[in-house]
């Protein structure tokens, strides 16, 4: 398994610039892969982030009633949205990695289970899945608990946050598994063969040779999934999680001012996704080979 600073090195590989190689006079300079040159200048799309933030600040400062009041009301929902996204995403990466490895496994049983998972989950809308986890799963757990006379299960009380995370992870994990599978398969077979020929095990070769290279390939689609997840967390508002969207609905039903509430909520989501997008594109430029 990974040891002595594996993740630290992986992280560094996004931060370091390519080392300066002393020229050998007769050989022509070998350039990096076209398009992979590290970019030094600031990502130009930061202006949009700044513009949206300035707009938000102006709205709240110039018209504190209602904008500042709405913000104060929904800010705990904002925190829940961020929390839900980040926690789910960590588990999604883990599930996606396991699922992706399962999809390329030579063992037919593992391959079948992983493929079945992906095929089933991709065919059901996320909203339906979230509702199933919140309403159907607890009922199922209770029935099983009563059948086997296990009080712990029979008295199960649904925890909306936990079930929302489960629903998001199960659904997004299937998409992530496909991304990881494609990423791993995009690394030339010779890399694995060279690693195995040196006596490294399949797992060691995956961890130290294939996956670090696949990370670079999957970064753009994984970043994309993160932003989609951030937006899709708004669906949990129907299963009793007090996220940004649900808090917005609560404020609106008390004051009935849809225009101001939903404009502010939309801008808050926009700031989150724009910042996430800039972070991802910054990651993409920090690669050293």
């Amino acid at each position, binding site marked *: 398994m990974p040891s002595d600073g594996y993740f630290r090195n992986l992280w560094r590989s996004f931060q370091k610039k390519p080392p300066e*190689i002393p020229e*050998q006079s007769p050989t022509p300079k070998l350039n990096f892969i076209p398009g992979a040159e590290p970019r030094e200048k600031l990502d130009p799309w930061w202006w949009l982030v700044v513009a949206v933030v300035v707009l938000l600040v102006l709205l709240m400062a110039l018209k504190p009633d209602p904008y500042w009041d709405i913000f104060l009301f929904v800010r705990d929902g904002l925190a829940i949205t961020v929390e839900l996204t980040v926690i789910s995403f960590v588990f999604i990466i883990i599930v996606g990695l396991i699922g992706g490895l399962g999809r390329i496994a030579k063992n037919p049983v593992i391959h079948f289970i992983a493929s079945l998972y992906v095929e089933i989950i991709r065919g059901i809308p996320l909203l339906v899945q979230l509702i199933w986890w919140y309403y159907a799963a607890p009922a199922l757990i209770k029935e099983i608990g009563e059948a086997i006379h296990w009080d712990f299960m029979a008295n199960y009380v649904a925890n909306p946050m936990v079930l929302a995370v489960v629903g998001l992870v199960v659904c997004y994990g299937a998409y992530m598994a496909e991304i990881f599978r494609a990423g791993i398969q995009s690394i030339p077979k*010779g*890399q694995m*063969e*060279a690693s*195995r020929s*040196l006596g490294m095990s399949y797992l060691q070769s995956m961890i130290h040779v294939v996956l670090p290279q696949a990370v670079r390939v999957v970064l753009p689609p994984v970043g994309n999934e993160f932003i989609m997840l951030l937006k899709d967390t708004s669906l949990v508002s129907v299963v009793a999680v007090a996220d940004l969207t649900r808090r917005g609905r609560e404020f609106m039903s008390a004051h009935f001012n849809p225009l101001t509430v939903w404009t502010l909520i939309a801008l808050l989501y926009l700031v989150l996704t724009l910042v996430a997008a800039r972070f991802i594109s910054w990651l993409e430029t920090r690669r050293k*080979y």
Partner: protein
Amino acid sequence: MAKPIIHIENIHKHFGRIHALRGVSLDVKVGEVVVILGPSGSGKSTLLRCINHLEVYDSGTIEVDGILLKTAQNINTVRREVGMVFQSFNLFAHLTALQNLTLAQRKVRKRSKAEAEKIAMDLLKKVGITEKADAYPAQLSGGQQQRVAIARALAMNPKIMLFDEPTSALDPEMIKEVLDVMLALAKEGMTMVVVSHEMGFARAAASRAIFMDEGQIVEEGKPDKLFTKPTQERTKLFLSKVLQI
């Protein structure tokens, strides 16, 4: 006579309906340099890849350094004794030349970082590219990459080195720098099995040359004899095509 370090007996290999190896037997003694040549699709690369189990063969036996491959519980114990050099170099693209040499030393041989780096630098010096130790593969020429790949295999202190068309993907002016490294290795007494059409190398270094065609060994002998006085028609035909240029 000492026991051969590689003992191959009557192996067969199918790729779907293609019968790639049809009963190949071959013994290689310690310190021998065996060059295998033959037309494309003759099974020479497949044979080489069977020796370190990158290809699983259907029947027959292969014994490497006294370990029977089919029954070897841990194939990695055989692989760490057998270095392999590929046609397409296969350097780890995300690691520097130096890190390419140290990774397996640390993970498989369990050497310390300092020890692995010292061995790596000595080997990079041997193949003549110390100044590129911190370069990534994409920053190296083909010849340099292949020399790093040879050094990477040597870093594991293998008893046997396998070369799978090591110069076929190289520009002509870079072939010599790789062959020079291989020649030096042969002179040091390394046991080598080389799939290659480099007649010059075969003449200078090989103790035996083997001609393969259609999954079988057609003819074998001293390189000079095989190249100048082949006895089999198929060998003559192949050599006439290769040598006429």
